[in-house]
């Protein structure tokens, strides 16, 4: 005759500790440098794929790129570095003050599209220079696609670590993906007007940040 299987009693803490201790194995420590390296690798791969698909804009090396190109891509790089630093630091559990460099970097970058829009709004009738390149909105799409690779690397870093602020990690992933993805694609784009680079190439940043805020937390929850 079969005897009913007794319902197992809830495991006591002592039993849990004994079992975990028995199963312990050596681990390789998670290092911030690995996180930086992985996100840098994702960005480089995104840039290489962009170059393969769209060809590198040689005007960058021929001195044809406008100041807007350098300034805006420089701001994107600063934001990319700041958000990557915040993201990697946040991938390891810690308490205490968090730097707000990504927020300030994003605020500085936000000045650019505002300036571009003001330029468009105050341009003389018939002045096409102010709106030059605005219709090439697909650049924003390509930059977002490049950002996917950066986001993938960032998510891998976060999953390997133990982020304790999922919402913040989501924002930072989006900011890093948007800014570094935009640079990765941007080296192939010959349009360097303020309107184009300042609006179309900056647009992926807020879009990716909002997507990151909502998509990333469920992927990194532990």
């Amino acid at each position, binding site marked *: 005759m079969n005897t009913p299987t007794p319902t197992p009693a809830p495991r006591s*803490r002592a039993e849990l500790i004994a079992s*975990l201790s028995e199963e312990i194995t050596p*681990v390789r420590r998670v*290092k911030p440098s690995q996180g930086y390296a992985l996100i840098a690798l994702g960005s480089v791969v995104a840039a290489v794929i962009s170059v393969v698909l769209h060809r590198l804009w040689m005007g960058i090396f021929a001195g044809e790129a406008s100041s807007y190109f350098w300034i805006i891509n420089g701001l994107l790089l600063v934001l990319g570095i700041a958000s990557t630093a915040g993201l990697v630091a946040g991938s*390891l*559990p*810690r308490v205490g*003050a968090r730097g707000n460099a990504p927020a300030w970097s994003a605020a500085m970058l936000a000045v650019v599209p505002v300036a571009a829009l003001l330029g468009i709004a105050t341009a003389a009738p018939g002045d096409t220079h102010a709106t030059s390149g605005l219709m090439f909105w697909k650049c924003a799409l390509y930059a977002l696609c490049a950002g996917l690779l950066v986001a993938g690397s960032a998510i891998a870093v976060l999953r390997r670590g133990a982020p*304790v602020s999922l919402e913040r990690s989501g924002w930072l992933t989006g900011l890093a993906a948007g800014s570094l993805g935009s640079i990765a694609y941007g080296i192939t784009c010959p349009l360097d007007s303020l309107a184009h680079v300042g609006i179309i190439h900056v647009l992926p940043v807020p879009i990716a940040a909002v997507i990151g805020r909502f998509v990333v937390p469920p992927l990194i929850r532990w």
Partner: protein
Amino acid sequence: MVADEPTFARLMVAAQNGDKAATNVLLSEVGVWLERYFRRRVPPHSIDDLVQEVLIAFYTKRATWDPSRAFLPWLAAIARYRWVDHLRKVYKHESKELLEDDAVEDSEEEVVMARVSLDRLFGELPAAQAEAIELVKIGGLSIRETAEKTGQSESLVKVNIHRGLKKLAALVEKAD
């Protein structure tokens, strides 16, 4: 007596290297530390479950501790993360309950957190939300009784509890 920072750090290095005896001592000491940590934050009957949950998280994520950094802030961050997760589960449960049923269950299990922590956090909530949560979730009044006592409609009481609990969970997550 709970182990001090250098002892924790030494045991943790040994645990990261796979030392079974050190791991056993470390987990026991961490358990005691966590018990103290949660004593002021969750109802007494929830402490052991939460401690065990954190011990498993601690064990799983042991590779994320860097010996060049302090151990206890790292442990506190994991404990707080699990606590927030616990609050979220409670919040989800409470929201579902409020949407499905007018009556309030008498289960203490779903009380959001111990009063000590709530008093400080309540200061951050709008008065109507804090009052609704306090009367229903801590005082044990029904939605109807709370509505009569506060002058809010029954729907408003439910909305205030729903929004207040959500905000509480967010406040705890943001607080460092």
